[in-house]
C-alpha cells in the first residue's frame, strides 16, 4: 500500500482538518466526536444531515453548504459513524423545523442513525437511499444499497429545504428522487482500506466486477474484461430492467445521467463512458437533459465507475438546477 498518510490512526482527522482548512469560508469542523457543519448556520429550515463511512469523498462533507447539506457525520473509513456524532450534529444544525437524515441503506448506517433518531430531542425523519440495482433480489435481502444516486437526493432535498419547506415535504421529495433513481457500478481494481493495507478483493488483469459496491463489496458477478461499450451496455440494461421492474417507463421521462468515478479512473474514461451511456439511452428513447460526470461518490482508490439514471419531473429538475454552493458541487449564485 502506497498512500499519502502519516499514522493510520490519524488519517481521518488529518484529512478532515485539511478539508475544513481548505473550505474555511464555508464549513466548520468539530472533533471528538467528528462532525462538520455549515459555517453560517441556516435559520428556520429543515436541517439536512447526512453521513456515512469515510472514503467516499466528496460524499458527504463535500456537499455541505447552501442548497445542500447542513451537516455531515464522517465515520471511520467505510464504517458508519456513531449516534453521538449525529446527535451533536443535529443539535448544532437544528434550525427550528426538525432534522432530516439522509442515510445510505446499509445495516450499519441505518442502525446508527436509527439510534440517534430515537435519542434526538427534535422532530426528525429519515430518507434511506437505495439506488444500487446491482443487488437484484431484494426480497431475499434487507434492501438495496445506497450509492451515487445519494448525491442527487441530497442536492434536491437540500434545495427544497432552502425554500422553507417542512420536514414531511423534504422527506417526500427525498423518497421520490430515490424511487426514480437507479445505479450500477463496475470495478476494474480493488480499493485499499488504509487500516487493512491490502486490497479488499483480488481481481485479475483480465477481469471486472460487475455490480460492485462502493466499499468494494462483491457485485453481481466476476466477468471477463471487455471493451467499454459492452460494459456500459450491461450497466444501462441493468438500470432499465430495474426501472421496468418498478413499473417505470424510462422512455417517457427526461433523465439525469450521472457517470461517477470511484477514485482512480481518469475523467477521460468517464467521459468516454458518458458518451456510450448517453447514446444507449437515446436509442431507448430516453432524453438525457441533465448530466454530471466526475468523482462524486468514490471508493477510495478503486478504479471503476458507476452509471446512475434519475428519471426527472418538473419538481426534481427545478431542485437539481437551483443554486448550490458546496466544495463538491457548485453552481448558480
Amino acid at each position, binding site marked *: 500500500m502506497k498512500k499519502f498518510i502519516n499514522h493510520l490512526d490519524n488519517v481521518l482527522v488529518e484529512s478532515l482538518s485539511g478539508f475544513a482548512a481548505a473550505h474555511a469560508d464555508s464549513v466548520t469542523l468539530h472533533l471528538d466526536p467528528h462532525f462538520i457543519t455549515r459555517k453560517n448556520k441556516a435559520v428556520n429550515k429543515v436541517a439536512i444531515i447526512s453521513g456515512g463511512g469515510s472514503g467516499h469523498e466528496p460524499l458527504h462533507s463535500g456537499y455541505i453548504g447552501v442548497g445542500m447539506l447542513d451537516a455531515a457525520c464522517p465515520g471511520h473509513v467505510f464504517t458508519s459513524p456513531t449516534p453521538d456524532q449525529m446527535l451533536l450534529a443535529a443539535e448544532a444544525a437544528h434550525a427550528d423545523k426538525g432534522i432530516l437524515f439522509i442515510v445510505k441503506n446499509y445495516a450499519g448506517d441505518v442502525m446508527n442513525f436509527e*439510534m440517534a433518531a430515537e435519542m434526538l430531542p427534535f422532530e426528525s425523519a429519515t430518507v434511506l437511499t437505495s439506488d444500487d440495482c446491482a443487488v437484484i433480489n431484494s426480497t431475499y*435481502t434487507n434492501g438495496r444499497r445506497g450509492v451515487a444516486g445519494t448525491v442527487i437526493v441530497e442536492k434536491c432535498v437540500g434545495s427544497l429545504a432552502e425554500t422553507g419547506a417542512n420536514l414531511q415535504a423534504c422527506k417526500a421529495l427525498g423518497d421520490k428522487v430515490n424511487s426514480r433513481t437507479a445505479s450500477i457500478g463496475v470495478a476494474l481494481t480493488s480499493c485499499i482500506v488504509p487500516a487493512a493495507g491490502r486490497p479488499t478483493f483480488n481481481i485479475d488483469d483480465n477481469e471486472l466486477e460487475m455490480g460492485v459496491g462502493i466499499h468494494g463489496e462483491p457485485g453481481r458477478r466476476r466477468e471477463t474484461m471487455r471493451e467499454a461499450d459492452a460494459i456500459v451496455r450491461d450497466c444501462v440494461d441493468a438500470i432499465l430492467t430495474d426501472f421496468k421492474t418498478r413499473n417505470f417507463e424510462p422512455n417517457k421521462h427526461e433523465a439525469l445521467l450521472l457517470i461517477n468515478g470511484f477514485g482512480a479512473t481518469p475523467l477521460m474514461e468517464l467521459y468516454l463512458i458518458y458518451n456510450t451511456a448517453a447514446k444507449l439511452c437515446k436509442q431507448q428513447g430516453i432524453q438525457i437533459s441533465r448530466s454530471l460526470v466526475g468523482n462524486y461518490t468514490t471508493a477510495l482508490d478503486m478504479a471503476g465507475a458507476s452509471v446512475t439514471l434519475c428519471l426527472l419531473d418538473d419538481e426534481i429538475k427545478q431542485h437539481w438546477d437551483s443554486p448550490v454552493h458546496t466544495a463538491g458541487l457548485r453552481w448558480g449564485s
Partner: protein
Amino acid sequence: MKTEFIIAAAKAIQQTILANENTLESLDRAIGDGDHYINMKRGANTIVDIQAELASLAPNEAINKIGLKLLSTIGGASGPLLASFFMAMAKVLRENGDESLLKIAAAFAAGVQAIIQRGKADIGEKTMLDVLIPVSNQFKLLATPNGDIKLICATLINTAEQGMQSTKDLIATKGRAAGLGDRAIGHIDPGAKSCQLMIEAVCKLAMEA
C-alpha cells in the same frame, strides 16, 4: 459476576480479537467490506483503555458503560448491535439483585433480544445471531441453580463453534453480504466468527475462575 471479572473478560476479548486479525479481516473482505477486524479491535481497545473507570463501577453500571462506549466507538453494523446487547444486559442486571447463573443467562438473553430487535434479523440469516441465539438458548437451558459452570462453559463454547460454522453454507439475508446471493456460500460470517471468539474467551476465563 464481579466488575473485576468484567474487566478480565474485556482483556480476554481484546486478546482473542487481536490474535485473530487475519481470520476476521479475510472473512469480511470476502463477503463484506473488510473492516470488521478493525471495528472489533477499535471497540476492544477502547474498553480496555477505560478499565480504571470501569473498576469504579458496579457490575451493571460497568456493562452499561461498555455498551455506551461501544456505541460511540465501533460504528458500522456491529457497533449498535453489540452496544444494544450490553445496554439491554445491564438493564436486567440492574433489575435483579443476585448474581446467579440464572440471572446472567437472562441478561444474556435480553442482550440477544436487543440485537434481534435492532437488526430485525433472526437465526439463519448469516449473521452473529447464528452464534448468539443458539448460545443463549443453550445457556438458559443449562443455567440451573446448581449447574456446573465448567460444563456449561464447555458446552457453550461448543454451541458457539457450531453456530459459527453453520453460517458457512448460508445465503445472507441481512447485513452487507445480503447482496451477494449464492456468492456468500462457503464463507463464514465475520460477525458470527467474532462472537464465537468472544464467547470462547469469556467462557474459558469463567472456567479458570
